[in-house]
C-alpha cells in the first residue's frame, strides 16, 4: 500500500492527467471520462489533486515521523538509561511540551513563519517527540530494573554492546510502534493543519482538498460528497493505515526474542 502510494507520489507529474491547480472544467462536475473524479468548486480536476496530494502527504509523513522518532528515542533513552539530572531535565522539557495545548502552538509557529511544507514537517515532528520520549523512557526504566543491564555491565559489557544486545531488541517493538504511529499520525496531522488553514494555501494536499470540500456550503446536499470528500478522506486513511501495516510487518524482525519463543 505504501509502495503504491510512494510510486504514485513519485510519478505524480506523469500520472496526473491535468495540472491540479489549473481550472480545466466546469465546477462541481460529476465523474466523467475527462475527469475521473469530477471537479471541485473552482473546476479543477480532482484526480490530479489526489495524485499530487499523495506526494505532499508522503513527504510530510516520512520526514516528520523520522524527526519525531529520532529526537524522541534519543531523549527518552538518554533519560531512561542515564537517569540523574539528565532524566529530570529531559522529562521536565517533555512535560512542558506535552502540557502546552498543541493547537495554539502550531498556529503560532505557522503564523510566525508563514505556511509551507517545511514548516508542516517541523511542526508535526516537534509535536511528536515528547510522547515518544516518554514511552521510550518508561520502557528503558523497566528494562534496567529487570537487571539485564546491571548484570551485563557486571560482566564488563561496554555501552555499545548493551545497546545492541539488550536495548535494541527490547525497544524495537516500541520504536517501531512509535514510528508507525507517528507516520500515520503525521498524515492525519498534515490534514488537520491544512484543515485549520495552516498548510500551504496554494499547495495541493489531501488535507486542503478535505478542508475546501467540508467548508463548501451544502456539501452534503449534492452528489459531490461522494467524489470530493470521500476520496480525499479515504486516501488519508489508506496512507495512514499503510504506514501502520508497514510497521507491523517489521515488528517480528525487531523482536528476536519472540522468534525464539
Amino acid at each position, binding site marked *: 500500500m505504501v509502495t503504491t502510494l510512494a510510486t504514485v507520489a513519485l510519478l505524480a507529474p506523469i500520472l496526473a492527467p491535468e495540472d491540479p491547480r489549473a481550472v480545466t472544467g466546469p465546477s462541481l462536475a460529476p465523474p466523467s471520462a475527462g475527469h475521473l473524479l469530477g471537479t471541485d468548486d473552482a473546476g479543477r480536476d480532482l484526480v490530479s489533486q489526489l495524485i499530487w496530494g499523495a506526494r505532499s502527504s508522503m513527504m510530510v509523513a516520512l520526514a516528520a515521523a523520522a524527526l519525531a522518532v529520532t529526537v524522541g528515542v534519543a531523549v527518552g533513552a538518554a533519560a531512561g538509561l542515564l537517569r540523574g539530572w539528565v532524566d*529530570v531535565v529531559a*522529562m*521536565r522539557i517533555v*512535560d*512542558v511540551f*506535552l*502540557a*502546552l*495545548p*498543541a*493547537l*495554539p*502552538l502550531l*498556529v*503560532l509557529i505557522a*503564523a*510566525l513563519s508563514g505556511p509551507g511544507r517545511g514548516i508542516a514537517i517541523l511542526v508535526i515532528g516537534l509535536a511528536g517527540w515528547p*510522547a515518544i520520549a*516518554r*514511552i521510550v523512557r*518508561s*520502557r528503558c*526504566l*523497566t528494562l534496567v*530494573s*529487570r537487571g539485564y543491564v546491571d548484570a551485563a555491565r557486571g560482566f564488563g559489557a561496554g555501552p555499545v554492546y548493551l545497546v545492541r544486545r539488550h536495548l535494541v531488541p*527490547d525497544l524495537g*517493538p*516500541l520504536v517501531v*510502534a512509535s514510528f*508507525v*504511529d507517528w507516520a*500515520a499520525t503525521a*498524515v*492525519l496531522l498534515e*490534514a*488537520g493543519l491544512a*484543515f485549520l488553514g495552516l498548510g500551504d494555501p496554494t499547495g495541493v494536499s489531501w*488535507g486542503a482538498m*478535505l478542508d475546501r470540500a*467540508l467548508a463548501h456550503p451544502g456539501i*452534503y446536499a449534492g452528489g459531490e460528497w461522494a467524489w470530493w*470528500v470521500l476520496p480525499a*478522506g479515504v486516501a*488519508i*486513511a*489508506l*496512507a*495512514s*493505515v499503510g504506514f*501502520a*501495516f508497514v510497521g*507491523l510487518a517489521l*515488528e517480528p524482525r525487531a*523482536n528476536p*526474542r*519472540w522468534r*525464539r*519463543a
Partner: protein
Amino acid sequence: MSGLVASYVLVVFLLLTLNFALPRALPGEPIAALGDPTSSTYVGDPERRAAVRRYYDLDRSALDGYRRYLRDLARGELGTSIRSNRPVARELADRLPWTLLLVGTALALATAAGMLAGTHSGWRRERSTDRSLLVLVLSVQSIPVFFLASAAVYVFAVQLGWFPLSGARTPFDGSSGVAAEIADVAHHLVLPAVVMALPFVGLQYLVMRAGVVSELGADHLLLGRAKGLSERTLKYRYAARNALAPSVTVAALQVGSAITAAIFVESVFAYPGVGRLLFESVADRDYPLMQGSFLVLTLLVVGANLLADLAYRRLDPRTVA
C-alpha cells in the same frame, strides 16, 4: 517525592510564562481582530481606539502586563474577556464541566477498548482474530477526526436522526426532572464522545499489543505455562499486567492530544467546551480568555501527567528502585 512535586512546580511556572507570552506573540491584536468581517464596526477614530485599548489594559508595556498577570493569578483572578466582557473565570466555569465530561468519557472508552483489543490481539498474535482486530483498529484510527465528526453528524444525526446534531443538551427544558436531564445529556454526548474516542484506541491498542507480545517470550510467562496456569490467568495476570504500565502512561499522555482533538470535535458538534472556547479566543486574540483557557487546559495535562507518574510507580514498583 518532593523532588517530583518541585519539578512540577517549575513546569507550571514555565507554562505560566509561556501562557502570557504566546498570545501576545501572535500576529494581529484584539481590537482589530474583533472587527468581525460580517459587521464592520471597526473603530477608526484614534481617540476612541485609545480609550478602548485603555479600558482593556492593552496599553501597558509587556513587562508591566506580565507583572500584573502574575499578581492577578496569585490572587486567583483571571481577568475579563475582551470579547464578552465577562469574567474569564465564569466563562471557564460554564465550559469546563462539558470538556471534562467529553474528554473523560472519550479517553475512558478509548483506553478500555484499546487495552481489551490489544491484550486479545497480542495474545493471539498472527491469528485471524489478531489480524482483523488490527485492521479494524488501525483503519478507524486513520480517519481524520474532523472528517469522522462531520460524517457522523451527517449519517447519525441528519440522515438517521438517532442523535441530536449539536449542543450538550436540549435547551429550555429544565422541567422534566433530573433523570430525564441526565438522559438528555448522555444522548447528546454519544456522538462526540465516540468520535473522539476512536482515534485514541489505536495507540492504546498498539502499545498494549506490543507489550503483550514482548511479554510472550518472557521467562516468568514460560515458567507460568510450565506450572500449568490457565491461559486466561496467564493472559490477564501476567502478560497484560506487565504491559499495563505503558498503557497508563499512554492514557495520561493522550490527555494532551485529546484536548487538541476536542477543539475539532467541539467545533463540529457545537459542544460548549473549553477546547472550542480556546479556539474562539485564539480567533479573537482575546488575550485574557486565551490565557485562562490555556491555563485550565495545561493544568489538566500537567495534572494528568503527575497522576501518570504516581500511578506508574504504584503499578510498576520496580522503577522506584
